[in-house]
């Protein structure tokens, strides 16, 4: 097991290295003078400011040296300071990280928790009209644009329950109820595709499991049906479920970028969109790097859990 783990760990390091190179090269691929374009968002430039910025971004050194400096600093958590606000980039990312994390965690939990009963229901009604309907429903849930869903929800809410809609963001620590109330709509908008995806997964795993020998044995032993379903079959569904959760995180991050815009949540999506409008490349670079590294780590952890759960891989 430790050998499998070690191999995965090496993979992880290689991937992270590759990711850092791509992110690093991004700023060099920008056509024209990146520094001049960055300064474009301000209205006046002096040569001094230009030189200072050049130094700050480090574009005046050989490429390899630039990369080593940049990557070394990034490993220490130092991404420099944001060009316009003067705040350290690491702080900017940290401030914007929590709302996004909360949003994705809520959506993931909501989707995952509901997926189990829905998937079981789907498995039990297999083959009938209800099965087809649910399948179509699941695909619709998967392909519904979450930003559109968000807007429609706001629209309906303002028509039917205008006093309910609380918008924006309050940290959980300041006002837990206000926080949950505000997060409800955006996480529902994000959770729907998760629910659709995971419930399909639960369904097929259940179907798979229910046909297996050990389930038949359990049934033959006279165990109650509910216990058969939930204990034996569900455990079987856990592995694909876990793998899927890793992939879903990536999807959620993408969805969160758009949903945050609609619901005025100050998360990473807003940070990176703002950075693009200002052409704040160091901030764009750092955000992409940190989020991708996080995503890679989540998938690594999922793999790790997978190895723990599934004895076959351990061997």
């Amino acid at each position, binding site marked *: 097991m430790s050998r499998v783990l070690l191999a995965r760990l090496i993979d992880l390091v290689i991937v992270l290295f590759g990711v850092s190179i791509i992110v690093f090269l991004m700023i060099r691929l920008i056509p024209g003078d990146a520094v*001049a*374009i*960055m*300064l*474009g*968002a*301000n*209205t*006046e*430039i*002096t040569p*001094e*400011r230009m030189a200072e910025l050049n130094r700050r971004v480090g574009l005046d050194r050989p490429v390899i040296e630039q990369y080593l400096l940049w990557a070394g600093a990034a490993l220490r958590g130092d991404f420099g300071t944001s060009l*316009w*606000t*003067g*705040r350290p980039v690491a702080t*900017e990312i940290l*401030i*914007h990280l929590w709302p996004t994390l909360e949003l994705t965690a809520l959506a993931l939990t909501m989707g995952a928790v509901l997926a189990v009963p829905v998937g079981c229901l789907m498995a039990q009604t297999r083959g009938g009209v209800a099965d087809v309907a649910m399948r179509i429903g699941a695909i619709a849930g998967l392909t519904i644009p979450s930003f559109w869903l968000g*807007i429609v929800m*706001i*629209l309906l*809410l*303002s028509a039917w329950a*205008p*006093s*309910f*809609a*609380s*918008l*924006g*963001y309050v940290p959980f620590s300041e*006002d837990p*109820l*206000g926080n*949950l*109330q505000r997060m*409800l709509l955006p996480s529902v908008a994000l959770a729907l595709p998760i629910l659709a995806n995971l419930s399909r997964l639960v369904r097929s795993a259940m179907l798979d499991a229910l046909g297996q020998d050990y389930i038949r044995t359990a049934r033959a032993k006279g165990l109650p049906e509910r216990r058969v379903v939930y204990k034996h079959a569900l455990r079987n569904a856990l592995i694909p479920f876990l793998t899927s959760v890793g992939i879903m995180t990536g999807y959620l991050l993408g969805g969160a970028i758009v949903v945050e*815009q*609609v*619901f*005025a949540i*100050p*998360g990473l999506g*807003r*940070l990176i969109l*703002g950075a*693009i*409008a*200002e*052409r704040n490349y160091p901030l764009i670079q750092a955000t992409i790097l940190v989020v991708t590294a996080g995503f890679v780590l989540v998938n690594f952890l999922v793999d790790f859990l997978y190895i723990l759960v599934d004895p076959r891989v351990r061997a």
Partner: protein
Amino acid sequence: MFRSMLRGVVGAGFMAAALTTASAQVLEIGADNGPTGLDPHLITAFPSFMVVNGNIYEGLTAIDKDLKIIPSLAESWTVSEDGKTYTFKLRSGVKFHDGSPMEAADVVASVKRLLSKDMASPLASRLSAVESANAVDAQTVELKLKEPSAALLSSLSVIAIVPRAMETNKDALQKTPVGTGPFKFQEWQPNGYILLAKNEAYWDKGLPKLSGLKFNIVPESATRQVGLTNGQYALLPNIDAATALQLKGRPNVKLAETMDLAYTLIGMNVSKPPFDNPKVREAVNYAINRQEIVEAALFGAGVPGGPLSPALKSWALDVKEFGCYAHDPARAQALLKEAGVAMPVAVSMKVLPRQDIKDVAQVVQEQLNKAGFKVELINQEQGQFIQDWRNSNFDMFASINAGQPDPDEYFYRTFRTGGSTNVFKYSDAEIDSLLDKARTLSDQGERKRAYDQVQKKLACTGPVAHLTYGTLFSAMNDKLKGYDVVPNRSLMMLRSASY
């Protein structure tokens, strides 16, 4: 289960909402964009200006809602015979938010800071006439000018006075502003909100009435609208007609409106074909149907406008004076033929990334294409747009500009040969001499005559096709009293508002 949980959350939400409205008097404002920085000498964009101007910082003078110059940190002033020396008597007992007193040394330091090469302030051109600033005594400041400047008092309204210690510090104020205004900076949650608290030591006793301002940054228009109608936000400042129209007649919502100083425009690069030819520029004016733009992009809430806003009643000429403002595509085509350019005239137009400007650009594109042009729209991010704008890297562009209370503040830097924002590379001897002369005149009648000539010439063959002046709206909860919308988009009236 889920249902009852939902009900619980909803109920608790109602309670929380009730509690907050009862206890606090912090005015919740819904803003579409967050500021990029808060240093009053570096920022020019509306989202920053709105937070800073008149709330956190004040200038020696201020502009009221009728665009009149009123005293602010200067109680009074005198101008010398030759118009080259201004002496300001400062208000006494004014303190900065950090507790230090505001004195002549701070004013001098602020002027120097603004003009220093190191700051590279975009506002520096407003004070280009200033030769030196001296503190006569703690309460008296003297500004010496290289030449008379009729627009100086108006310009001083946007020159924030900062503590003298900031003269050499160009980073600190971007994050934590320190001013003399009725509200002091408290917290900035990027992309979330900016919170200002009441300045208990404000010089105008009894003000401000509100205990604070919270600028909530809400990019989505529909979300802001819902926030206002459900009482979460009490004010949506400086909104466009489309938003105002959607909020009109909603319960608990009232609208305030004024003529905007800001104008939509098409800029043309006169340093290269085809717009180096005045006939082509005139053709553009004939091709454009300004009334249609007002209808289409401004929802009828606005007027066709020339080089100066109709809000500047003592300066602006009626658009009927401009012959080329009569929509006449045939005449435009004829002018293009006269100019000898190959038709259709293929040009690109860069578009400022704002919904209203994107709409304006699409309408203008259609109009020009019907009159012998072939316009390609190029949409860019804000940063790239400004970069290309500054480097004169465009055929045409569509944009919106903040207007100025005094004609010189706009005309001189925009149309004078070598002017700081003359990105069109426009150069015309007659305009130059008129502008040079007009800024030194003290007689209002004479000045007006000079600017009339400038307006007439610029309107048809200038490098800018001025399009429209919109009606500027603010939507607010009807419990908000004492606030009105100001043409230059300052929220300075919030000091006397109550909620």
